[in-house]
Each structure stands twice: as structure tokens, then as C-alpha cells.
């Protein structure tokens, strides 16, 4: 029991000394309870329900699922990342863009936009 403040000592002593006495036990009560016990079967321990089992199993699926997701993400990233162009390809691309755009926005042609 924890330490009592000084004032509480007297109070607790008073309550204990003057606590109403518990009525004496009925001598038949033990036999009555044991008879009731004899007629009663203890409850079965609660078995995990199928839903719970499924949930537990699904918990074990979580780590492989996470690993698979990471692998797919990494693979997709690898596939979609453009491969660096070589110097020849860059020059070819630059040439193509210059020619194409020069013709599209030729400043000397006021009606250039009518070509479309």
C-alpha cells in the first residue's frame, strides 16, 4: 500500500475499525456453487475466426507485395529513362530542327500561317 498522508491515517483507521461486518457465509453456499459448477462446462477458449486467420495470412503477404512494387517501379523507371544520344545523333537532330523551324516561321512570308 502506498504511503498515507498524516490526516488519512486516522481516517483509514476509523473506516477499517468501523466498517460494517460482512454477514456470515451461508454454509450451504459452497455446496450450491459447486453444484452449479458441476452442471456447467467452462467456456471454450476463443478460437480465431476464419476472418482473423485470413487477416493474419494477408499480413504475411505484405513484405513480398512491397518488394514486388519496388521492383516494378524500378523497372519502369529504367524503361522510361531516355538513353543519352551520341554526338552524331545530336548533330542530326539539330540539323533537322533548324531546317524544319526555319520553314515554319519564315519572317519574310506574312501569310506563313495560311499553310496549315
Amino acid at each position, binding site marked *: *500500500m*502506498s504511503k498515507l498522508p498524516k*490526516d*488519512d491515517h*486516522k*481516517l*483509514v483507521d*476509523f*473506516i*477499517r*475499525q*468501523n*466498517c*460494517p*461486518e*460482512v*454477514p456470515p*457465509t*451461508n*454454509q450451504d*453456499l*459452497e455446496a*450450491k*456453487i*459447486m453444484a*452449479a*459448477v*458441476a452442471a*456447467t462446462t*467452462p*467456456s*471454450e*477458449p*476463443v478460437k480465431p475466426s476464419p476472418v482473423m486467420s485470413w487477416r493474419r495470412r494477408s499480413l504475411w503477404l505484405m513484405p513480398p507485395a512491397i518488394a514486388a512494387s519496388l521492383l516494378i517501379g524500378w523497372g519502369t523507371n529504367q524503361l522510361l529513362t531516355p538513353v543519352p544520344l551520341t554526338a552524331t545523333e545530336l548533330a542530326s537532330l539539330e540539323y533537322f530542327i533548324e531546317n524544319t523551324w526555319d520553314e515554319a516561321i519564315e519572317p519574310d512570308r506574312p501569310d506563313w500561317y495560311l499553310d496549315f
Partner: protein
Amino acid sequence: MVSGDVANPQLSDAHLVEGCLKGDRQTFRLLYQRYQHKVRSTLYQLCGGSVLDDLVQDVFLRVWKGLPKLKNPQHFSTWLYRITWNVASDRRKQFAQQRSQLETLNHHADLRISDVSDLMHLHYQDLVQKGLAELSFDHRTVLVLHDLEDLPQKQIAEILQLPVGTVKSRLFHARAAMRKFLEQQGVQL
């Protein structure tokens, strides 16, 4: 009642629980004998004596039925007090509108007055019973378990499934209310 288990105090609660789980009803009898007085006393302080035997029976039947669900047999006493508290709580709800425990006490006291020298003691018993009845059920429970049943605050917290701080707070308020009541009745503490 002299408990047969008093002669065999080395038998732990866990050992007895294991016996019960194997279907040994005589082992359950030992558990009953070991704890029936504590259960009876707690129920009496919380609910009075009108249906005390029925409540005690209810507690031990619930214990018998629920034993397979007890996860840690070493904590049997805490679990038992929890069931006792549940039974008392259910009883209180059922009879919230019925007559107060004071009537029961008066009836009980009337039967006992046979000696003038006991009069003051009976008067004080009456005051303590009235004081307990004045408390809320929550405060009374903590006061009974701690100050009368001598249980540590930690175990009370486990029984009532409350933080220890809440138990301390309730005990403080319960004692303050009890002291105030007794002083109002002329008792000098």
C-alpha cells in the same frame, strides 16, 4: 469458514487454475475457499447484503465459465476482482431506483443491538456505511479496494483498467468526501 487451502498455501493460483482447466472441480473448490471471503467482503461493501449470496455465486460461476479465457493464470486475483467489480456494477445498475443500502444496514443493525456498549460502535458503523453510500460508485470502489481490501494502487488500476493516476485521484477525492461527511456527523478524526 476455515479454508482447506490455508493448510496448503504453497499451491499457487496458477497451479490451481491449471487444475481447474483440466476439469478438476475440487481444485476449483480450493480457489473458492481461498477467495470467497475477499469477494464476499468487496461485494458487501459495494452492494450491501440483500442479495449477497446470489452475487457471490454469480462471481464464481463467471469465474468457472471464464477460466479457459484467462490468459495469465498468475494474475488470477486481479482477474477475479475485475469480475467481482463487473458483477457489483451490473447489480448497481439494476437496482439504481430501488431502496438504498441504508435500509439494509438499519435492518442488519437492529438485529445486532443487544449490548449497550456496542451502541457507539454500531453508530460509527452506520456512519461509515452511510458515508460509503454517499460516494459515487467509482469513488466507493477505489476506497473499498484500497483502504478496506488493502490492494495496491497498481493492481486496482489493472482491475478497473484505469491509469494509476486516475486511481490516486479517485482515492484522494473519495477520502476527502468521506472525511467531510464524517466530520459533519460529529466525528473528530
